[in-house]
């Protein structure tokens, strides 16, 4: 069964450094998402992406964050200048269409540790 893949599984970065988290969504899916889960807390929506542009974003997704679909397969999340509080699991998801009747398929996540 096709799946969403994320790399790396664990990223350790110094505070203030830029980090790029990578995702390969399921190939025929059109909607892409990033979520994060701080240790011990709820999964939080960051951003959704469709047709090469952001369709929705949360308050968490400030100017430090950006997303890109650089080619036909990858979907990336960039954090420009990381802070300690950015330490979390970051999950990428994709769906075939709008989520109104379609489930989102999640990757296994990237654990981001900011030192």
């Amino acid at each position, binding site marked *: 069964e096709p799946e969403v893949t994320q790399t790396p599984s664990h990223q350790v970065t110094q505070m203030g450094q830029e980090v790029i988290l990578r995702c390969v969504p399921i190939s025929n899916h059109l909607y892409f998402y990033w979520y994060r889960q701080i240790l011990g807390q709820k999964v939080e929506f960051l951003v959704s992406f469709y047709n090469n542009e952001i369709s929705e974003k949360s308050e968490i997704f400030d100017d430090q964050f950006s997303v890109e679909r650089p080619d036909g397969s990858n979907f990336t999340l960039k954090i420009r200048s990381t802070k300690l509080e950015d330490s979390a699991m970051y999950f990428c998801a994709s769906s075939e269409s709008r989520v109104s009747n379609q489930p989102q398929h*999640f990757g296994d996540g990237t654990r981001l540790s900011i030192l």
Partner: protein
Amino acid sequence: SQQGEEDPQALSIQEGENATMNCSYKTSINNLQWYRQNSGRGLVHLILIRSNEREKHSGRLRVTLDTSKKSSSLLITASRAADTASYFCVHLDTGANNLFFGTGTRLTVIP
């Protein structure tokens, strides 16, 4: 907060028993979904119930939805040790295209 709340926060049962988890939410929803998360892993979609549906089955899973009470329940019958995981009630608000996660129920099935 738009996010839902699961109840109980933790549940421990013997293998073979049924597990029931409840969820409440606050807004008007388009659908409600249940996901599971094994420790340190990603989220796996289990079942989706639309706002105009009241009950849905999938294998050993049974989901109910009461939109008047803004609540849902997930029943896992004949539980197995492999069902040990966190279960999340996730809803999609009307007009939105992103999911709002609850706090999750940590289910432990003892062999």
